[in-house]
């Protein structure tokens, strides 16, 4: 038993018919952590979340909440609440009644229920509408009420299944900050599910990248982005360039690799063993023109460019390889490199990463 662990998922697997949705998944979630499960559609995020809530049970393996095995405990007896993707507010109850529902079921006193309900609605700026019904609310408002309702019974763990996906861009941004603050203030462990990597990087203490029913990598946002352990993670989180390379030599954290762009040394990971491998370089790690200084420099030609406002995406050709690069538009003039132009590009060996192919 470990008090510092809010959730322990141990070798959990799950089949739906003959389809294996989860293949021996294991991870721990720390107390007071903002933990995100990130992965493409159908990778089993919701299934895992539903297991934590108690709506689904693992075929094999076990789930512990605060050191206690909960596999046999029904949802209503778990100190876990969920913000559903569709919000699932009770349409026949007022917002007040929705928020009070969990408290009534826990047998709180009337006065305490009233106080807590008022407090939670206040907290999500919905007090003015306390006596309305959910049908009369906008998506963002429903979202906030769902949050208040799930937080009201003081759960030990709050589960959120893509709660922001139905909101428009501006609102999504605002809600990210609001959720993050709420988590810090309440100190409740948040388990957040999303397929939006930007959201995951922005909000999480730690991220578990799920793919094909397996945990691909667990780490802080920076670890996930900068040090992906395999091709799947590098590809799914952020944009990247992949090059087929051959590891000629690998020792003491340093690997010599042969690439179509030449042979050079890069920091190696455990994955880098002699033989065929994949090199991943993020577009923003490739510098152009005057920004390309130090490290490995190459001559390239601009094949295409997409102006994005704050930065410009370039498609480059060098040594028969196509690379994507992005360049910050630091000043108004002189930043744009014309299509068809020859340009010097460069990157630091340390910002490239060798992955098992």
């Amino acid at each position, binding site marked *: 038993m470990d008090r510092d662990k809010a959730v322990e998922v141990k070798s959990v697997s799950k089949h739906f018919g003959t389809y294996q949705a989860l293949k021996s998944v294991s991870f721990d979630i720390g107390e007071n952590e903002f933990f995100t499960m990130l992965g493409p559609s159908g990778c089993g995020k919701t299934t895992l979340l539903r297991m934590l809530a108690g709506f689904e049970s693992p075929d094999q393996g076990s789930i512990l909440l605060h050191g206690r095995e909960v596999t046999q405990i029904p949802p209503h007896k778990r100190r876990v609440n969920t913000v559903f993707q569709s919000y699932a507010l009770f349409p026949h109850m007022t917002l007040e009644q929705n928020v009070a529902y969990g408290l009534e079921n826990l047998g709180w006193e009337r006065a305490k229920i009233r106080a807590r309900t008022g407090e939670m609605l206040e907290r999500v700026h919905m007090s003015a509408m306390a006596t309305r*019904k959910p049908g009369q609310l906008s998506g963002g408002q429903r979202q906030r009420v769902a949050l208040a309702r799930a937080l009201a*019974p003081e759960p030990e763990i709050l589960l959120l299944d893509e709660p922001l996906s139905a909101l428009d861009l501006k609102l999504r941004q605002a809600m990210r900050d609001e959720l993050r603050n709420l988590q810090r203030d309440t100190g409740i462990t948040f388990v957040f599910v999303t397929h939006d990597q930007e959201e995951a990087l922005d909000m999480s203490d730690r991220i578990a990248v799920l793919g094909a029913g397996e945990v691909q990598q667990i780490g802080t946002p920076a670890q996930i982005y900068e040090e992906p352990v395999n091709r799947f993670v590098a590809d799914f989180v952020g944009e990247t360039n992949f090059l087929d390379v051959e590891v000629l030599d690998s020792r003491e954290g340093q690997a010599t690799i042969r690439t179509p762009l030449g042979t050079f040394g890069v920091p190696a990971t455990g994955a880098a063993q002699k033989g065929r491998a994949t090199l991943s370089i993020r577009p923003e790690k490739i510098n152009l023109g005057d920004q390309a200084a130090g490290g490995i420099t190459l001559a390239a030609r601009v094949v295409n460019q997409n102006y994005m406002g704050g930065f410009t995406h370039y498609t480059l050709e060098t040594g028969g390889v196509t690379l994507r690069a992005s360049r910050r538009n630091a000043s108004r003039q002189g930043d744009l490199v014309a299509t068809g132009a020859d340009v010097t590009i460069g990157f630091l060996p340390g910002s490239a990463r060798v992955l098992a192919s």
Partner: protein
Amino acid sequence: MRRLANNLPFWGLLPAWALMGFALILPILIIAAVSVATRGSHGGFTWDFNPAGYAQILFNEGWSGELEFTPQYLIIIGRTFLLAGATTALCLIFALPVAWYISRQTPGMRAILVYLVTLPFWVSMILRVYAWMIILGKDGPLPRFLETFGLAPGTSFMFNDGATLVAMVYTCMPLMVLPIYASIEKLDLTLIEASHDLHGNRFTTFRRVILPLTAPGIVSGAILVFVPALGAVLEPVLMGGGKQMMMGSLIQLQFGGGRNWPFGAAIAMVLMGLVMLFLIVTALRAARRTAGMEARA
């Protein structure tokens, strides 16, 4: 052209109005008129205003023409309502789990089960009631089966209120199952999960989430069962052996053997009045409830 387009709702609905007028409103008006007509000496009636039909529901005409209160028809009315109420309640109790079970199946299976629920409608009602008479009757399958558990041989379950109720519930069940099924199918299952998630046990979830959200279906089902049950003739006569007079039989009797058309029409009017009252009250309550839930898109 413009005028026609503007009046399209009127012209378009004209056939429907005409049908309603001839097939529904006109007969009701005729019955209403007959109910205050005078009874003819050899059946039929004459067009002389006479509220005796209504008076007869509550009062009996003595030898010398004085009116004395008799509860016998009130008892029949009460018994009819009791039967209809019991039928509705039993149908509800059986239909809820059936509808729930159907809604839990795969779409293909659901279609098959819904079809099976409506299957009895494809067979003549008289045949179905006779089938029940055989099942429950002396030497029928049910008594025979129970005899193996010690029931006295030769027992019959027929010709009593219980038998009437069995047939009533049986014939009315689909009318209850279908609307309830329709409303359960529309029910968002994540709401049930949300209830469990918020520490609601099965009972709380049923009472506070499932029941209120399927109430429209339950109300429709109750109306569809209760109203026809009030006018039931076949079941009380065949299954109950006609020992307990119901309103349906009473009315039929006045137009047939009793030869008292105004009295029959008066009872029919009273029955209709009570049904309308029931419907209006239900509709008002439903309107009040949906007013709060409007625009829940």
